[in-house]
């Protein structure tokens, strides 16, 4: 488990072919680890009939809506939460 609740993280802006469950609109965006959901077989591999092992940590990651949408007019306190696997996250050292 690399990250803990409260850690700043950024979603990799990677293009990966195949079965990817990280939504396009979050790629490259910074947020924070809200909670650790657990570890699970990797769905990117399960999708092709593989074992998905070793299990990968899954996090509930929070984002500010204003960081996601160019024309967002709602409150700066509006959040979006997404379940993201560890292989899609890197530490964020910026101060957004």
């Amino acid at each position, binding site marked *: 488990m690399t990250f803990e609740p409260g850690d700043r993280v950024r979603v990799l802006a990677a293009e990966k072919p195949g079965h990817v469950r990280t*939504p396009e609109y979050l790629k490259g965006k910074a947020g924070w680890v809200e909670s650790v959901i657990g570890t699970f077989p990797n769905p990117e591999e399960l999708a*092709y009939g593989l074992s998905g092992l070793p299990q990968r940590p899954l996090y509930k990651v929070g984002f500010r809506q204003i960081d996601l949408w160019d024309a967002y007019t709602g409150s700066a306190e509006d959040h979006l939460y997404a379940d993201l696997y560890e292989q899609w996250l890197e530490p964020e050292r910026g101060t957004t």
Partner: protein
Amino acid sequence: MGGVHDMGGSPAGPVDKGQHEVEDWERLADAINGALGAKGLQSTDQHRRAIESLEEYRDLSYYERWVAATEKLLLEKGVLTSDEIDERAAEIERRWNEP
């Protein structure tokens, strides 16, 4: 670019929230999926991957995608051949059209 299923956040018109009666074949599609899962012949992740890779994705309804993806997986795994599926479909059509 995300896959064809990864459309969250894309510009779009209003969402159609209309409901429709679930048809018998749609219930059957759901049941077959459950049975294949119970027999270890298909998993949710495999099914999702097959759905996302359908070339005709945008032209199909929800359960049409399910059925097309299940067929694709069963062919891929060698559980059924396309000849077997076509023969069975033709047989059902004959029976359906009988007076």
